[in-house]
């Protein structure tokens, strides 16, 4: 809990001033709000008197007080707005920056969707709670304290009534909250699950209709919604005690004050208490009870935000599992790669290695083809090279140096990976390509696009290289996207280029042209190509066949054909018909 508060508090930074001014102005506002009923009581008492000027004097004082109170209130509102939105801004920025430093492992651990929730909903929750705290958490206790003091200054005996009633009401309100909060926490999970199933239903509506499962889905949903209804109703019924118990205490105090007040005034002949003071006492009483009600609300809001803060702090305090070494080597000598007895698993807890005892020696400039079934760990293998994940056992060297010794950015600039899950960002084609090299000239961009066989279709777009790519790259086809991603990687002029199934949507002819361009234009770059089609890798210097985290066959095309193993089988299945023609 302490780390949560201190971590969040560290995000206040340049908004400390506002965060302090807001409660300060709230305090001033409260003081005035409490002083006013007292002055008003005075006015009432003066009415029976004979001097009008005093009343007018008091009236002017009251008007000034109201104006001041308005000013203070407005200022408090203003500063609390800046403080809370500022805090939210800083938290979001810290989160975003932190995530930029995350390694693949960390991203996998948190998952994309959960990171998005933390950056959006959770931050909003904390922002609202913070605003609430700096305004109300100061206001309500102050209100209670001032009102009690004022009541005591009017008549200590009468004020005792409040001292008895306050703890009682608090006990009841907080009792209700403590009963209900855990119930709400539990049912919010059910509520989320219900909404989740709606989401699934919407995106899977074609499946639902194709299998004629409408009735089944309706039954499933109505059961879920009935559960949510029953649970929420039960919880809200407990919460429904809040308002009547509040009224009970308000009325009880009014009754008690009226009774004792009336008898005191009469028996003391207005010496101990006056009519005006009686009215003020009632006002203070209602103010106190309202403040307690507010306090319980603040409490509910804050405890709801605690969970959000926990999730935020979890990210902020997470140490990136993969760090660039200090004074890491900046230069990658060449594109040679050596796997020495490398084993790898994604998480300490997984029982099985994703890669097992890999030994591999790739010379600079060689082309390596990798083929293998779904789940054979092809991608895991290549992701180790640019240190997207760290090896679990063994060593991996690039250019003769252990990858862990390189400056991370230098390593990744020299080992370009085109990931299987290709992503273009919203922006023009040019902007997307410049990810590879910020300072690339238009000529350089066109050149790499020619290599990746993308120039031709880009030239056909009306805006050519300035064509705007929609979010998720929805306005280019899969094959076009893949070629742009290859061009983007080429722009880095890497020493090692890795294509992870990056030409699957490109036709075989274009695929061949891309490889031809690689051979002729970047002969010194080591090329590693993962593919499903044997035609994509048949001309590679080394072909690796992977299965279940092992390299089961290795050699060139002819050697593997002669071996008569898996490669041959895949090759035959893809080429049988062709040979028959």
């Amino acid at each position: 809990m302490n780390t949560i508060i201190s971590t969040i508090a560290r995000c206040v930074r340049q908004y400390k001033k506002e965060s302090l001014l807001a409660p300060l102005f709230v305090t001033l506002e409260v003081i005035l709000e409490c002083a006013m009923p007292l002055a008003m009581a005075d006015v009432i008492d003066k009415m029976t008197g004979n001097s009008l000027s005093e009343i007018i004097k008091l009236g002017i004082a009251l008007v000034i007080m109201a104006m001041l109170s308005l000013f203070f209130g407005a200022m408090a509102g203003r500063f609390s707005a800046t403080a809370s939105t500022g805090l939210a801004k800083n938290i979001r920025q810290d989160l975003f920056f932190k995530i930029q430093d995350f390694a693949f492992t960390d991203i996998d651990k948190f998952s994309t969707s959960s990171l998005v929730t933390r950056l959006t909903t959770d931050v909003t929750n904390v922002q609202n709670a913070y605003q609430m705290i700096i305004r109300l958490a100061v206001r309500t206790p102050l209100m209670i304290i001032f009102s009690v003091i004022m009541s005591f200054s009017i008549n200590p005996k009468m004020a005792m009534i409040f001292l008895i009633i306050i703890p009682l009401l608090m006990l009841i309100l907080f009792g209700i909250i403590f009963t209900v909060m855990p119930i709400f926490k539990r049912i919010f999970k059910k509520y989320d699950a219900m909404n989740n199933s709606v989401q699934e239903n919407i995106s899977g509506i074609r499946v639902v209709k194709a299998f004629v499962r409408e009735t089944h889905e309706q039954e499933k949903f109505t059961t879920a919604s009935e559960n949510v209804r029953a649970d929420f109703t039960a919880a809200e019924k407990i919460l429904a005690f809040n308002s009547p118990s509040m009224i009970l205490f308000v009325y009880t105090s009014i009754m008690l004050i009226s009774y004792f007040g009336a008898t005191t005034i009469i028996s003391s002949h207005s010496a101990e208490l006056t009519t005006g003071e009686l009215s003020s006492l009632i006002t203070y009483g209602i103010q106190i009870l309202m403040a307690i009600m507010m306090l319980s609300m603040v409490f509910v809001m804050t405890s709801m935000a605690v969970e959000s803060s926990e999730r935020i702090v979890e990210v902020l305090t997470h140490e990136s599992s993969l760090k660039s070494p200090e004074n890491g080597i900046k230069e990658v000598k060449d594109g040679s790669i050596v796997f020495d007895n490398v084993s790898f698993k994604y998480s300490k807890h997984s029982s099985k290695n994703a890669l097992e005892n890999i030994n591999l020696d790739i010379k600079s400039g060689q082309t390596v083809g990798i083929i293998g079934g779904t789940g054979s760990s092809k991608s895991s293998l290549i992701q180790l090279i640019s240190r997207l994940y760290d090896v679990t056992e063994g060593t991996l060297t690039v250019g003769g140096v252990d990858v862990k010794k390189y400056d991370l950015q230098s390593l990744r600039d020299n080992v370009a990976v085109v990931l299987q899950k290709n992503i273009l960002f919203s922006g023009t084609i040019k902007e997307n390509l410049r990810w590879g090299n910020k300072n690339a000239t238009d000529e350089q961009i066109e050149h790499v696009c020619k290599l990746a066989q993308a120039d031709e279709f880009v030239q056909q777009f009306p805006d050519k290289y300035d064509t705007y790519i929609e979010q998720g790259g929805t306005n280019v086809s899969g094959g076009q996207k893949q070629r742009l991603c290859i061009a983007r990687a080429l722009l880095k002029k890497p020493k090692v280029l890795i294509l992870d199934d990056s030409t699957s949507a490109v036709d075989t002819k274009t695929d061949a042209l891309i490889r031809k361009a690689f051979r002729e234009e970047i002969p010194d770059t080591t090329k590693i190509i993962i593919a499903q089609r044997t035609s994509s890798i048949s001309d590679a210097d080394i072909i690796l066949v992977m299965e279940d985290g092992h390299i089961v066959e290795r050699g060139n095309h002819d050697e593997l054909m002669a071996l008569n193993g898996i490669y041959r089988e895949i090759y035959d299945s893809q080429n049988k018909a062709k040979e028959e023609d």
Partner: protein
Amino acid sequence: MKNGIKKGTFSRLIKYIFSHYKIQMIVVIAAIIINALASASATFFLQRLIDECVTPGLEQGLGAVWSKLLSILITMGTIYLLGIIASGTYTRIMATVTQGTLKHFRDDMFVKMQTLPIKYFDTHAHGDIMSTYTNDVDAIRQLIGQSMPLVIQSTISIVSIICMMMYFSFQLTLIVIVFSALMVTVARKFAGASAKYMTEQQKSLAKEEGFIEEMMEGQKVIKVFCHEEESKKAFVKLNDQLFHDGDTANRYGNMLMPILANIGNLMYVVISIVGAVMVFLGAKNFGLSGGGLVTAGIIVSFLDMARQFSQTISQTSMQVSMIAMGLAGASRVFGLIDEKSEADEGYVSLVNAERNEDGTLREVDRHTGLWAWKHPHSADNTVTYSELKGDIVMEHVDFGYNDKKLVLKDISLYAKPGQKIAFVGATGAGKTTITNLINRFYDIPDGKIRYDGINIGKIKKPELRRSLGIVLQDVNLFTGTVMDNIRYGKLNATDEECIAAAKLANADSFIRRLPDGYNTMLTGNGSSLSQGQRQLISIARAAVADPPVMILDEATSSIDTRTEALVQKGMDNLMKGRTVFVIAHRLSTVKNSDAIMVLDHGRIIERGTHDELIQQKGTYFQLYTGAFELE
């Protein structure tokens, strides 16, 4: 329509609540009225207490007014008790009514949603539909559960306070009315400005959230390209804008309450000064209670009423935006409930059948592997059966998703029972559209598609779809175990049947390697599985349904070719003698089809077997030899 609120939404909402909870609502309203009156009467008693007990008591002594004091307190206590009971009653009942109404809304929406045509889902962003279930329903909860009781109570309070004020003094009431007009004007001004900035804030929030989503989605690409610093820069820009807009919007929102409260305070001051002056001058007072001199008791209780009055008005004004949001939400919810369901005029149904000795069919209620179309004849109340063979004919079909563009032009095709028909063509050529017409996801004018000679418009939609097993391009798995997901194809399938289907789809071996095998929970559309594994499960799901006709739409696109060959063998065995439609990108997938249709821009440009098409040396040949691009 104003602010997204459709006319008549309010009365419809009220009717909706009353239709489900009539008695409860009557009790609730009565209880709210009692509660409001009880709280309004508090001030009334204070005046009586002062004028009838305290003031005379000061002269005559406590003993003289003792019984009066007691009787006032007892009446007061009784009325308060009623108020407390009323408040307890209505808050509890409202919990039931609110949550119950929300459930009815959710169920109505969901039940309706299942009947909507696919077109609806094409034309409405899924995020927007989802938001109806979450944000809009939540806005309605606020409206029914909080705003409505509060507004009813406030209205009653305001009316009763005004009545009481007039009872005491017309002159002072006038002051209150002037001030409350001022409060309402200020509140409206502020609400308008605040709404404007709120919209700005929402806009930049949406922008920033869009950016966050895109960047989180592409986080791995960012790492690969060492693009962290650039994305930080872009983020800071958006984040600063959001801060600026949020700050302004919140300032306006935060200031309204203190401003209203202090206008209330000013009113209080003005009344007390005017009152004091009146007392001082011995001015005459006019009220419903009659004329007379202004007394201190009148002023004291009047001031109390004035404070209650201004508090009520500022509280209610805070509800205005809530009410608007709730009604806008209700408009959208009713909008979804009012959507037009998918039309279905079909009457032919699908039944399991057995062959009689004379070759005719009879209906049975168990799976026989033989299906029949059941035709009811309304003229003479008889039924006839015809065998489901899987003979599908399309004649000169034109179709477009909208009026602007035809996606399919003059498509004719004949699928004979037991044939495997393949569609090949670029993205957007219309391959998937053809299958969407066969299962009537989209309807075309009568008679152009016939299934075993029956116009598919005459077949009941559910029955038609039940006869077609479909594996869709985009895999959608549901939260549940792997077994549940496979069983989705046939709800009463045994575990053995599901496992057999998984084996057939070649999914069994990887499923067994999952942490809990077939009982492994899948969430988030099976996000823990690879794309290929998800496709295998969706094939198993279709296989367990064991349908007479199967449509495979890019069903094996993410599966490696070795596994695909095994899956295909299994499917070929299952579908022996039945009709299969295959859409594929990889030509190796379609090679052994009986007929291959090459589509281009909505037209069939070539058709024939693999060998015939290769001999034709046309587009298919070019595709096959890699001379042409399939995109």
